[in-house]
């Protein structure tokens, strides 16, 4: 039941993309996302799609794997597409049947938006698939550390993220166990209407929350026992260093983004 969840999944490979500095990867992803929202032409999108194929190729991950990551958002993509097709006006009328009216502007905006969302998901999942959670939070922490001047808790936030990511599989396992135990007591999680099903989740959710709190307590005690007191003065085993390949990746991505916007 919980086996398909891939949030924060990381697949270790030895590839150029994997070896890039996490800070640079985050920056590049942000630039590409901004780029995605500034594209206004068909060719721009095509170029961007080609660029992600290129990146996937260099990450040595399989395309089907990334495409599978689109599954959970397929509904949102289709919804956006149809809403735009049916309700956005502009340009020639392509189809008119009773109350349905499709105009050229709607069709294009719909297609653009759908592609935008799909590419957005692909770029971000490429980031998480090629960057281990630890690297990712390390990168975020250093990127956010200038904000410490304004009392922004960069380290604490990164720590929270690390812990959250670390406990996703643990909690899923726990949920599976509780689910089985309640099933053994005749609980039914599969039938009934939406309201009924939501109610039926209570025997799963209450113990799950309790166990999450219990784990949080234990973890807090363990951190305290090791004298953890926040980020001040902490050193790292692996210092992040920007290499030439990182700068190269940045330059290429910037060129691509500028290119696709100008087309």
């Amino acid at each position: 039941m919980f086996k398909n969840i891939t949030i924060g999944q990381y697949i270790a490979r030895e590839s150029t993309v994997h070896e890039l500095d996490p800070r640079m990867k985050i920056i590049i992803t942000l630039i590409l996302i901004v780029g995605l929202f500034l594209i206004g032409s068909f060719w721009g999108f095509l170029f961007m799609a080609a660029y992600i194929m290129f990146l996937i190729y260099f990450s040595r991950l399989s395309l089907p794997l990334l495409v599978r990551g689109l599954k959970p958002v397929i509904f949102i993509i289709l919804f956006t597409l149809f809403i735009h097709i049916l309700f956005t006006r502009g340009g020639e009328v392509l189809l008119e049947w009773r109350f349905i009216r499709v105009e050229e502007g709607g069709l294009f905006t719909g297609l653009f938006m759908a592609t935008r969302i799909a590419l957005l998901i692909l770029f971000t999942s490429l980031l998480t698939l090629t960057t281990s959670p630890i690297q990712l939070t390390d990168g975020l922490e250093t990127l956010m550390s200038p904000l410490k001047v304004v009392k922004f808790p960069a380290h604490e936030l990164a720590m929270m993220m690390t812990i959250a990511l670390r406990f996703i599989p643990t909690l899923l396992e726990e949920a599976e166990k509780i689910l089985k135990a309640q099933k053994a007591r005749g609980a039914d999680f599969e039938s009934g209407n939406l309201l009924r099903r939501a109610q039926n989740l209570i025997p799963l959710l209450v113990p799950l929350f309790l166990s999450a709190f219990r784990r949080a307590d234990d973890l807090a005690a363990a951190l305290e026992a090791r004298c953890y007191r926040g980020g001040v003065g902490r050193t790292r085993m692996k210092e992040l260093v920007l290499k030439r390949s990182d700068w190269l990746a940045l330059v290429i991505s910037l060129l691509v983004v500028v290119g696709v916007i100008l087309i």
Partner: protein
Amino acid sequence: MRIEIKGVHFRYFQEEEEVLKGVNMTIRDGEFAALVGHTGSGKSTLVQTINGLLKPTQGKVFLDGQEIGKDISFKEVRRRVGLVFQYPEHQLFEETVFLDIAFGPKNLGLEGEELKRRTRRAMEFVDLDYESLKDRSPFGLSGGQKRRVAIAGVLAMEPELLILDEPIAGLDPQSRRRLLDQIGALNSQHGISVLLISHRMEEAAVRAQRVMVMNKGEIVLQGTPGRIFEGREKLLEIGLELPPLTDVLWQLKEKGYPLRTDLFTVEEVAREILQCWGGFRCSKISP
């Protein structure tokens, strides 16, 4: 009720090694059996195939001759076979002890007086006082009490076979003994078949009529506790230990004293050693 497991194989993922490699096992009507094995030997996986929580990748499970999932539905099987998981108190969720125990029977469609009767009876089985505890929150109870509430929750469904996965893990010695006594009474006084799963021989063996030893997805030994302990080498080989008292007998025997080694209760072992000491059998130790 009789459970027959025939040639059951199981693997969690296609690529991975099999967790169960063709298990054959029978649980007879009214017996108290124990399934012993090292952590990761497949004990917990095996019992989950009995009530359909896991479907075997190959092989069949029969309940009174009817194939589970085919001649008899999983729902029906889950009613007749009660499964108590490890640390069952982690599955408590209701506001009161009564409601939590009544969850199972409610799912069977019971209500009113019958529901009350079953809950009260299940609580009596595990020695919980109905009147004083039924309206308390299960989360405010002691560890041992929580565990018993959770077990009562399964007993309230009135299963014919009760499977308990490491039921005394993490309890203090007194609660352990008490719980094992209660489980024993369920079997001897109320005729419920029991399958006790444990990785520690001394817990399982002492009360069971029959012990099955599992290793790496297979049943490697089975028989009465006494007979199992005769196979000491085999047990040590797969990383299981004999109950401490039986081990004492073995060590004495290795020193040359002619003692039996299939005993495990304090009384039996003491009698055996004293007899030997006093009689001519153990003249070697006489001063």
